[in-house]
C-alpha cells in the first residue's frame, strides 16, 4: 500500500494491444457514430465484432459468461483508449458499461446466461428507459406502470430522452410496479424487447443534431422472466449502479483530441506574423485546458480505483461527473475564444478550423451538465453524502 500512479506490465501490454488495434481499425466514421450518438449502424456493428474477434472485449467480466475474470482496470483501459480516438465508445456502450453490470449483480442466473455473453460479443445494445416528462431530476416521480397479468406484466406510459431506443435491441426500463407505497419502494426494472407490439418510438432531435427519442408503451406485454432481480427493488438497483456508471461514462480521455487539435492550430496559425503559440493569452488558455484534463483524469482514476477495490463510494464518481461536464464547457469556451470568429464555422463549411468539431462540441456541451443528473443535483449529493450536510 503506497501512492502509485502507474499501471502494471500486464495492463500496459493490454493497453498497447488495444491501441495497435484501434489505430488500424477505428475509422473517424465509426467514432462519429459514438460521439454523435448516431447509433450502431452497419459499420459500428461490424466494428463491434472485430473488437471481440481481436480478443479485446470482456477481460474484466466473469469467466463463466465469456470473460477473462480480470479486474475492471482492463475495461477502463479499453474505454480510455477508445476515448482518446475522437471520443469513441465501446460500440454497445450502454450494455457494456452500464446495464451489464446490474444484470451481473442482480439478474437471475438464466438472465445472466442469456444476456452477458451477447453483451461481451458486442451483439446487443440497450437503451436506458428512466426519464419521463414528469420525472427528470426527480426520477422517483415516474408515472409509467407495469401490472402483473398471468405470465406477463402489462406496461403503459411514456419515457423521454431515451437516446439509444431507435437502434438498441432492448429497453432497460424502470416502471412503477406498486403505486401505493413511497416512490422509492415501488419501482422495478425490466428488460423489454424494443420490437414488442405496442411500443412507439418517436425521434427528438437535439440542438447538436444527435437523435434521442420519446418512447410510448401501449398495453405492452413483457414476460415475467424479464423482471430484473426482485420486484419493487428497481430504484435501489439504479442508485446502487450510479457510482459505477459514472466511472464508465465520464471519460476524461475523450477531451485529449481537442487539446491536441488546438495545440496544433496554435502552432500553425499566425496573426500579424506571430504564431498564436507565442501569444501568452493563447498559451494560458490552452495550458488551463491541459491542467483540467489532468485533474479530470485523476478524479476519474481515483473513483475507479475505489470501485475496483470495493471501497464505499459516497460522492467520488459524482465529483468526476460534475467536474468533467463543467470542464467540457470551459474547454469549449476557451478554444472558441482562441479561434475567434472562425469558431462558429460548422463542419464542412469553407474556412472551418478544427474540422468544425469545436462548433459541434459547443452545441453538445449544453447537455453535459444536465444529462445523467444536473450539476445542481450533483453538488447536493456531494454536500450531503460526501460532507454529511443535512437534508432540508
Amino acid at each position, binding site marked *: 500500500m503506497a501512492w502509485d500512479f502507474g499501471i502494471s506490465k500486464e495492463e500496459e501490454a493490454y493497453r498497447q494491444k488495444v491501441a495497435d488495434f484501434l489505430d488500424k481499425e477505428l475509422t473517424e466514421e465509426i467514432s462519429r457514430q459514438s460521439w454523435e450518438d448516431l447509433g450502431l449502424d452497419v459499420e459500428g456493428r461490424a466494428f463491434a465484432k472485430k473488437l471481440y474477434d481481436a480478443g479485446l472485449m470482456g477481460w474484466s467480466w466473469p469467466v463463466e459468461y465469456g470473460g477473462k475474470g480480470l479486474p475492471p482496470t482492463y475495461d477502463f483501459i479499453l474505454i480510455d483508449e477508445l476515448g482518446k480516438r475522437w471520443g469513441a465508445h465501446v460500440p454497445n456502450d450502454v450494455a457494456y458499461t452500464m446495464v451489464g453490470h446490474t444484470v451481473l449483480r442482480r439478474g437471475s442466473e438464466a438472465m445472466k446466461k442469456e444476456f452477458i455473453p451477447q453483451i461481451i460479443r458486442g451483439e446487443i445494445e440497450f437503451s436506458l428507459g428512466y426519464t419521463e416528462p414528469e420525472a427528470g431530476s426527480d426520477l422517483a416521480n415516474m408515472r409509467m406502470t407495469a401490472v402483473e397479468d398471468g405470465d406477463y406484466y402489462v406496461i403503459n406510459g411514456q419515457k423521454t430522452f431515451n437516446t439509444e431506443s431507435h437502434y438498441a435491441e432492448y429497453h432497460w426500463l424502470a416502471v412503477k410496479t406498486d403505486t401505493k407505497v413511497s416512490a422509492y419502494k415501488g419501482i422495478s426494472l425490466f428488460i423489454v424487447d424494443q420490437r414488442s407490439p405496442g411500443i412507439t418510438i418517436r425521434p427528438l432531435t437535439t440542438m447538436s443534431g444527435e437523435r434521442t427519442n420519446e418512447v410510448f408503451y401501449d398495453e405492452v406485454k413483457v414476460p415475467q422472466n424479464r423482471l430484473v432481480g426482485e420486484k419493487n427493488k428497481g430504484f435501489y438497483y439504479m442508485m446502487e449502479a450510479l457510482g459505477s456508471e459514472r466511472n464508465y461514462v465520464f471519460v476524461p480521455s475523450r477531451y485529449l483530441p481537442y487539446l491536441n487539435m488546438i495545440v496544433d492550430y496554435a502552432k500553425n496559425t499566425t496573426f500579424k506574423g506571430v504564431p498564436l503559440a507565442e501569444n501568452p493569452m493563447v498559451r494560458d488558455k490552452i*495550458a488551463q485546458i491541459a491542467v483540467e484534463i489532468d*485533474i479530470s483524469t485523476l478524479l476519474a482514476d481515483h473513483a475507479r480505483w475505489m470501485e475496483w477495490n470495493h471501497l464505499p463510494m459516497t460522492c467520488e464518481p459524482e465529483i468526476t461527473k460534475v467536474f468533467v461536464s463543467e470542464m467540457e464547457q470551459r474547454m469549449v469556451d476557451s478554444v472558441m475564444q482562441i479561434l475567434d470568429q472562425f469558431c462558429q464555422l460548422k463542419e464542412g463549411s469553407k474556412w472551418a478550423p478544427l474540422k468544425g468539431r469545436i462548433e459541434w462540441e459547443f452545441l453538445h456541451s449544453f447537455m453535459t451538465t444536465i444529462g445523467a443528473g444536473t450539476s445542481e443535483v450533483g453538488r447536493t449529493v456531494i454536500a450531503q453524502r460526501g460532507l454529511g450536510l443535512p437534508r432540508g
Partner: protein
Amino acid sequence: MDFTYTEEQKMIKKEARRFLEKACPNVEWYLDMDKDEKGFTPELWKGMAELDWMGIMIPEKYGGIGGSFLDLVVLLEEMGYAAVPGPFFSTVVLGGLTVLEAGTDAQKDDLLPKIAEGKCLLTMALTEPGTTCYDPSFIETTAKADGDNYIINGVKLFVPDANVSDVIIAAARTSGVAGDKDGITLFLVDGGTPGIKTTILKTTAGDKLCEVIFDAVKVPKDKILGSLNGAGAVIERVLQYAAVGKCAEMLGGSHKVMKITVAYAKERVQFGKPIGVYQAVQHHCANQKMAIEGSIYITYKAAWLLTNGFPAARIVSSAKSWVSEAYKKVAAIGHQIFGGTGYIVEHPMPIYSRRAKAAEYAYGNANYHRQLIASELGL
C-alpha cells in the same frame, strides 16, 4: 495504481497532527508568531527536531531517517493543516534538498548532520527586484572571482526566513546576463558574513519573507554548491520539489478550512435551520470538496513522479497552478460561509486565507506555471 498512504506515512500524519495541535495552541499564538521577529519558538523547533522531521529525507549515514520525498510531502501536508510557522520549509526543502542534490561530500558531511539535528537553519536567496514577473533565472546579482574567494553583490527579495538562517544559499550570476539559465552559481553563504543585511518584509501572511542585501560579501571558493555556472538545472529541480512541497502545505490548509467550514455550516442556525441545510451553502461546500479532491491527487502524483525520478515538469506545473487556485477558492468560500465572524482577526479563517495568498505566489503562481505547461505541450 494506488491512492493510499503507506503505514509509515499514516504514522507520520498521526504523530504530526497530535504534536502540532499542542505546539500551535490557538489563534493568539499564531498572531504572536506573526509579530515575533523570529516567527517561531525554540520549543516548537526543538520538538520538531526530536521527532526527526528535519532529517526526514536525509540519508541515515548523515544522521537522518532516509525517507522519501513522498514522506516529506505527507509531513508538509500536516504542517499546512496546522498552518505551522517557522523555517522548516526553507531549511529542509530549499536548504537540505539543494545540498543533497548538489553538495560535495565535504559539504554534505558538514551540513546534513546539522540539518538533521535541527542545529542549522538554511534558506535560498533567489528572487530579485528585477523579477517583477517571477522568473528564477532572472538573476542580476553577481559573484566575481577574487583570488580564493568570490565577491557577491546584489539584492534578493522574498527570501524566506533569512532573518534566522545560519546558511543562505545565494544564487548569483558568474557569467551571462539576467534571464540566461546558464551562468548561475549557488554559494553557501554564512548568514553572519559581513556585508549581508537582512530586513523582514511586511507581508499579508506575516511570514518572514526578507530582503537580503549582499554588499561585497566575500565567500570562499569551496563554498560553491554544485558546479560553477551550472546551477540552472539544480535550481529547476529544487524549485520542482519546492512547488510540490508548497502544494502539500496548501492541500493541508484547504482540508482544515473545509473541515471548520462544514462543521460551522452544520451548527450555525439562521432562519430556524442550520445553514448547511440550504442548497446555496451546500453547493459552496461541494465546490470546496471538488477543489480539494483535485488538489490531493495532482499533488501526490507530482510527488510520486519526483520521488521515482520520472519526468515531472508538466505535472508539477499542473499541480502548482491547480492547487494555488483551489486553495484560494476554498479559503474564499470559507470566509463566505463564516460571514462576519470569520472576518475577525482572532478567527482561524484569516490565518489560512492569508497563507493561501502567500503560497499562491511562492515558487511561481498559476499563470507562471501555465506558461511552463504551454511550453511542455510544444507551444
